[in-house]
């Protein structure tokens, strides 16, 4: 079946490498946004996409295999997403095709790399590292393997100091296995938790029945007839066991970035900007493989979490299809269950120790720590029996809302997000109740358009942007502080710079179009389109609008980190304005740029997916003009 598909398809508009949760989410979302494009997933994995967080429960037999599926079985076929089982080996970004194993080429319009990560495992030179019974838990097969072995294991050693390790410990304890947990450092999850929090977690794990060895490293593994018999530690101790589970972290699979003919920046992951573009045009990265800048610290790091992968997949889809991005990636957010405790970390609690006020509370078997600048929350850490409304706290930090009134309830963990947000927007809520209508997006939209239109103006003197930032933003403002920080420390300032973007001809064209058409929506969308593939640091849409918002427009709210102004109670994820903008968006210049790809798609074996009620775009939303694409391609070649 797949062979048949593979033979008939040799190019597609949207090619996604990897069918993890990020890849499939991107594919499904791309199908929704662009029903007429051809979406192809190329993957090595032979099973459908699964929810990896559920694997732990699967391993201990709480779930069966069907319950692991991330999307209902057959979603790919129903959504006309073609899955090709092959390994992608090289990217030829100039001609825009990839080569699969066996040397076959596959053309793409837009490419998404979602190859995920691979476990680090034990160092290969460790004595005994190849005995049977040493597992790294990462893929479905690893968990199947664990599940098979569980019956004959009495004692197990877990190595590693992360959330993954703790979940493994807890699932082994569930099976009544004696667990020895070796941590290299003295604390658990040292980058995210402080000492008291870590002690609390370790304590709860110990109470659950595991033996915790802090400051312990593995020197070697002892085996008997090829299978594991024990672990030797640096305290000259031999821990007998039949199973060693290695949870020492993961590293991104960046081999495709290395095998790309244009230089694709990568370190621990493939570096992407805040809209998931890599340093190579038409190529995006999402999921565990993408190293994203933390807006607070300016450091690039992959966010290896399921939630991050899903939201990145969605964003990648809207970028690839040319729809303006609805969501922001925002700040790191990590919520999980650690043994009997719920952990939540939002933002950076441990950074900027000297500039922030830190408030802690350790009552009632729980611990909370907040990092506050002025009265804005910048980091929140919570450990306790119950999880606070975690997404609401993320929103408070991202929007830079004042927490003066809710400081105490946040600290005590009794924060009622629903009440807070409805009180904040009493006005719009009241109007909602009295008129019975949803708050209209028009006003919001008008504000956004104004911002975007004005964003065209200051391009002439873009050099002064950092100065603006420094002068106009109060130093204590977390947003200003981060922006400033980022500009100072970022070694990537050159990363996305491109001389073509600021070409005066282009600017002139934008202005003309804006004046002749008189449709500001179209103009701003053009402007967005021109951005695509040729991003430059100062001109990224979000950035610019952010700068405008904080310097030129008298925004009613204080400056926020990246998020668009949210006008109402209903804009928890603010989808309203973006939907409006989408409708009048011209075709994405870049996706149609290889004309024969488009044509081959029309001819052949791919039916257009069925029309969905009401969700369908108007047919004129994607006029078939390839003028843009042509020029875009030429510029690329010249470059």
């Amino acid at each position, binding site marked *: 079946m797949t062979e048949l598909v593979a033979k008939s398809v040799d190019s597609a508009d949207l090619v996604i490498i990897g069918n993890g949760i990020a890849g499939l989410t991107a594919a499904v979302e791309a199908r929704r946004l662009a029903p007429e494009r051809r979406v192809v997933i190329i993957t090595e994995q032979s099973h459908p996409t699964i*929810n990896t967080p559920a694997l732990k429960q699967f391993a201990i037999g*709480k779930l069966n295999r069907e319950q692991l599926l991330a999307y209902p079985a057959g979603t790919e076929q129903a959504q006309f997403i073609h899955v090709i089982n092959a390994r992608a080996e090289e990217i030829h970004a100039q001609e825009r095709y990839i080569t699969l194993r066996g040397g076959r080429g596959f053309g793409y319009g837009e490419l998404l790399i979602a190859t995920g990560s691979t476990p680090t495992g034990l160092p290969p030179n460790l004595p005994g590292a190849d005995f049977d019974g040493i597992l790294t838990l990462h893929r479905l097969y690893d968990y199947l393997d664990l599940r098979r072995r569980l019956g004959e294991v009495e004692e197990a050693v877990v190595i590693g100091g992360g959330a993954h390790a703790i979940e493994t410990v807890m699932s082994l304890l569930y099976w009544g296995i004696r667990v020895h947990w070796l941590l290299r450092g003295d604390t658990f999850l040292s980058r995210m938790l402080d000492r008291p929090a870590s002690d609390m977690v370790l304590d709860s794990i110990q109470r659950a029945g595991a033996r915790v060895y802090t400051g312990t490293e593995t020197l070697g593994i002892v085996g008997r007839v090829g299978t594991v018999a024990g672990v030797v530690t640096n305290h000259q101790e031999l821990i007998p066991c039949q199973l060693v589970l290695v949870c020492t972290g993961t590293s991104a699979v960046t081999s495709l970035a290395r095998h790309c003919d244009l230089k694709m920046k990568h370190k621990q992951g493939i570096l992407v900007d805040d809209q998931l573009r890599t340093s190579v045009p038409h190529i995006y990265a999402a999921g565990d493989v993408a190293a994203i800048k933390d807006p607070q610290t300016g450091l690039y790091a992959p966010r290896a979490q*399921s939630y991050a992968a899903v939201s990145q997949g969605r964003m990648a889809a809207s970028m690839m299809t040319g729809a303006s991005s609805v969501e922001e990636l925002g700040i790191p957010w990590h919520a999980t269950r650690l043994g009997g405790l719920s952990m939540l970390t939002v933002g950076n609690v441990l950074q900027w120790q000297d500039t922030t006020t830190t408030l802690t509370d350790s009552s009632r078997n729980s611990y909370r720590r907040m990092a506050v600048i002025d009265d804005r929350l910048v980091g929140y850490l919570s450990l306790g029996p119950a999880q606070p409304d975690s997404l609401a706290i993320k929103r408070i930090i991202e929007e830079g809302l004042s927490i003066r009134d809710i400081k105490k309830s946040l600290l005590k963990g009794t924060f009622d997000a629903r009440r807070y947000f409805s009180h904040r927007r009493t006005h719009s809520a009241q109007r909602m109740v009295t008129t019975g209508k949803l708050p209209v997006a028009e006003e919001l939209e008008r504000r956004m358009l104004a911002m975007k239109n004005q964003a065209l103006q200051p391009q002439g003197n873009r050099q002064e942007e950092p100065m603006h930032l420094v002068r106009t933003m109060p130093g204590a403002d977390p947003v200003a502080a981060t922006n400033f920080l980022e500009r100072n420390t970022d070694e990537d300032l050159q990363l996305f710079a491109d001389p073509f973007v600021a070409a005066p001809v282009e600017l002139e064209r934008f202005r003309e179009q804006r004046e002749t058409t008189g449709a500001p929506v179209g103009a701003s969308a053009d402007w967005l389109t021109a951005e695509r593939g040729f991003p430059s640091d100062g001109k990224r849409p979000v950035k610019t609008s952010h700068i405008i918002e904080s310097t030129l427009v008298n925004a009613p709210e204080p400056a926020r980190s990246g998020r668009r102004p949210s006008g109402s109670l209903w804009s*928890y994820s603010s989808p309203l304005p973006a939907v409006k903008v989408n409708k009048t968006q011209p075709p994405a210049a870049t996706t149609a740029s290889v004309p024969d790809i488009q044509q081959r798609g029309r001819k052949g074996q791919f039916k257009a997916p069925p029309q969905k009620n009401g969700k369908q775009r108007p047919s004129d939303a994607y006029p078939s003009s390839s003028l843009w694409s042509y020029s875009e391609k030429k510029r690329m070649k010249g470059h």
Partner: protein
Amino acid sequence: MLRTGLSKRGSKTVSLHKTGPQVAQELVACIGCNECLLACPALDEAITIDVLNRETLSGPISTPVARFARSCFQCGACVAPCPVGLSRESMMMWLKVRLLRSGWEKM
């Protein structure tokens, strides 16, 4: 339009109602660990989290999910075990509203 309702359960406030965008965002944040379904006292169908999530969000509602939505009595047992702190209860409420609306449309 739904009226809002709040109830106290233990130390954590359980909110029955959240807005559509909020529910959509929470559905996106769902990591699919099935903990809520394992804790559910009203579940007697072979429902998996992927189907439930998808049908809560949009599209047609299948018979097992519709039956499950009707048998859900909003006890809130699903809220506490969620590792990422989502409120499955309000998602179920949303599903019920959708079910109701689709029923009306059929009539």
